[in-house]
């Protein structure tokens, strides 16, 4: 599978460091920040395929960060990863378009699979949009034709 870039957002510094280390061992291109604000700042500067987001953080919390990410970059997939097992928040996150809501402690391989699945989803979406652009530029009439079918 192609490499992709993941941003981890978690206010627990120890947890984040361990996770980054283990992900790097698995040849992943990863970066970590400690808050929702820092995540938004990073995303404005850098391209990221997937964000792994903690839910409870001081300042901008996970749900709010998710909402902001989807605003500026709807194609970026977001996976919630949290120690906070709350049905309501999980639901809210999923409805806001999170790819999944995972609970700590997480099996590291399972997290890796989720990242791969999320990336594949994103790739397919991008491919689809790419094709659509081609259709629209190459055959401007195709759209109106198909609409009438």
């Amino acid at each position, binding site marked *: 599978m192609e490499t992709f870039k993941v941003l981890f957002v978690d206010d627990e510094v120890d947890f984040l460091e361990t996770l980054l280390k283990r992900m790097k061992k698995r040849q992943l291109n990863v970066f970590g920040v400690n808050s929702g604000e820092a995540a938004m700042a990073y995303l404005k500067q850098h391209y990221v395929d997937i964000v792994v987001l903690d839910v409870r953080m001081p300042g901008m919390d996970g749900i709010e960060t998710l909402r902001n990410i989807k605003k500026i970059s709807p194609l970026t997939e977001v996976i919630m990863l949290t*120690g906070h097992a709350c049905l309501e928040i999980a639901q809210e996150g999923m409805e806001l378009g999170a790819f999944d809501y995972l609970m700590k402690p997480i099996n590291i391989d399972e997290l890796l*699979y989720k990242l791969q699945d999320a990336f594949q989803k994103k790739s397919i979406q991008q491919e689809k*949009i790419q094709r659509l652009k081609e259709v629209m530029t190459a055959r401007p009439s195709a759209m109106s034709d198909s609409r009438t079918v």
Partner: protein
Amino acid sequence: MKKLRDIFRNLFSCNSPPEDPATVEKLRVAFKERYHNFKLLLSANNRSLEVMAEMEQALQGEETFGMPFIRSSATSISVNVFRMVQNLHQLAPGKYLELNERFTAIQNAIDGILKQTRSIPEVRMVLPLSALDKDMADVAGSKMANLGEVRNRIHIRTPAGFVITSSAFKRLMDYNNLQTEIDRRFQSIESGDIESLYTFSAAAQQLIIRARIPDDLEMAIRNAWEDLEAENGESITAAFRSSALGEDSEGSSFAGQYRSELNVSFENVFQAYKEVIASKYSLQAITYRMNKGFRDEDILMCVGCLVMVKAASGGVIYSRNPVSGQDDGVSINAVWGLPKSVVDGSVATDVFVMSRTRPITLLHKSIGIKERKFVCYPQEGVCRMDLSAEESTQPCLTDRQTGQLAELALRIEAHYGTPQDIEWAIADNGAIYILQCRPLQQIAGVQEPADILDTKLEKRLLVSGGITASPGFATGRVYWVDRNVDVLAFPEGAVLVARQALPRWASLLGRASAVITEQGGFAGHLANVAREFGVPAVFGIPGVSNMIQQNQMVTVNANRRSIYDGVIPAPSGPPKTRVNRMAGSPIYEMLKNISTHILPLRLLDPDSPEFNPSRCNTFHDITRFIHEKSVIEMFNFGKDHNFSERSSKQLFYKVPMQWWVLNLDDGFREEVSGKYVRLENIDSIPMQAFWRGFVSIPWEGPPAIDRKGLMAVIYQSTTNTALTSGVRSAYAERNYFMISKHYCSLSSRLGYHFSTIEALISERPRENYVCFQFKGGAADNTRRLKRVYFIKDILQESGFRVETREDHLVSRIENHDMAYMEKRLEILGYLTLHTRQLDMIMAHPASVAYYDQKLRQDIQTLLAAH
């Protein structure tokens, strides 16, 4: 975005064959996207079934679990079911919208149960002891409520004092927003991981100790203290004792789980209050709650503040023997100074056993060597003093005092009507104070036959002596605990050996098979918890450390107060049953309630009109429904699109077979344009495995059937409409494989039965699964059932989990590596061919035996092949 999607969808809705390469490309992307959606749906389905299985396991009540388990299981299932609903909407937009409403209804029901909390009455944050009685346990905690009862209803002397109530606790926790933070940290702990539990315990206690006490609470405590001083006529010091809510549940003592702060001066009142509260998260308190199935949020910490009694002597009274059926007197445990060293098991004690009948007389006594005592410093704090040889051997109670204490104990017992566990102190001036009383946990003693005392056994006796702190019989390896860190390394099932019977070892009783200590009596906290957990314990064997080795295998017979070398079979008599701590506990009941919205599966038969979204009453129903429909949707999409690459192909293996193959994604090595697909061109790992098994051993042909068997088949095949085509979708009419490289779904109709196999096999063991369902058969019901059981046995031997309901069989296996999973599919391939029409011979024991043996042998051959 949505608009784009609509336009895009319209592009593909035409049914004329696509010609130009650009459109073909787009169709490929569409198929790819659908397949990815489908794959995500399957993975969510698999995950939710897994968590449901864990939930079912937990409901067996044999393992301990807590709220984090319940919350994370419920959330995980809910998230995965939600993903399935979304994925199905992607596969069939607008077709199953009713599922949303069902999903929300079920989720709300679960959320409602999760949010139930103990309702506590709104009361003042501080109440004087003089205002309490036993009915006020929900505001004052059971300990202080009972002390109020002793003082105000039984009119026996207690120290003056007040209680900082459950309202105050809530105020403190809410003010600092502590509960959510603590829950969040607790959630991340892996079950059984003592080390991270330890870290959590330290962190949670720190959070509380650093918390700020709100001004109104501080003022209330300050005022109460001033009132107490005014009443006392001079400046006071006090004892701060935990008095938790929820301790009062049947069969749970919470003995010594929390902290007490003795001889506290006003300066340190707030610190002491927070420290007592923080002990809710001591390691032993957390493990105790987990082992007993208490919800963290149900335990509200009230704190009693009692004027300190400067005790000359103190101790604990059991108004009866905690082991019933043994000598039945009032036993008084006593030490010099504060009673602290009786309950923490750190010092040998005097024991006086008094008659229960009046006039009260001394039945017998044993005077311990009390090496030290704890006394109050004048200003604040407690000091440990070594005693002189003369003082240490002197009884610490007079005959008059033992009589008075026994009399008080009998009065309290008579008032409550149950045996009592009473803590007391005698002040310098001779006044007796009751410090605490609670119901005594009594357990049944074990009568042992005398014959086990044979000479062979006596040779293996390592040591005997001490007292039976908790009866029973157990075997295990010796593990010494001395420092706190030993808790982390303590192995499951070991025999715990310690110098002192300290309450902190209680956190190990969920894992220890038995307990042996050099010091400590049966009135200590550790003894209490050992009895409660049914862990055999012998306390007070001096010098035991020199007689047994670390890691040595020993057998403990607590009834005989004996320790033997090696493994000795348990004495005959009823087998020792470990106390089942979960069943009936609040946590267990909550899981049970929640599971009724998750686990029951009512949607069984996809052919029935009941099989629709409105009948989905549980998450299991929803997963079952969605899974069934997603397979059909995948199939129909392939059929409906006149896209030759993705239309179904007839399997060509030597000759054209009666099997059709639908490629979902990357199931073919190269694209197929014609009518047939050759087996060599199939690149699906699970399908190839199935086929290997299917063709491995030639079929002998239909079993020779008796005339009755044949009649049964003919009769059933004409009446059982479910067996004729037209009822189910096209997918069920033929033998179809839907495949990708790692996936295969097969519905087959071989002979008269209907079966489906679904498998996902890739390099991700955690996502791998094989599921096999089987239904029907043409013979009459009894024979069909017999065949189902026949197949069930074989599948179970091959590692499948199997459930049967009538003639419907569902089996599943998951999380193994590729090679193992492929072998399971080979077995299914083999069984698919070789079990058809077996129902006909099921009435014939001899034939059954023949096939039984043949099938098992063939499977062995299959498993051995490479």
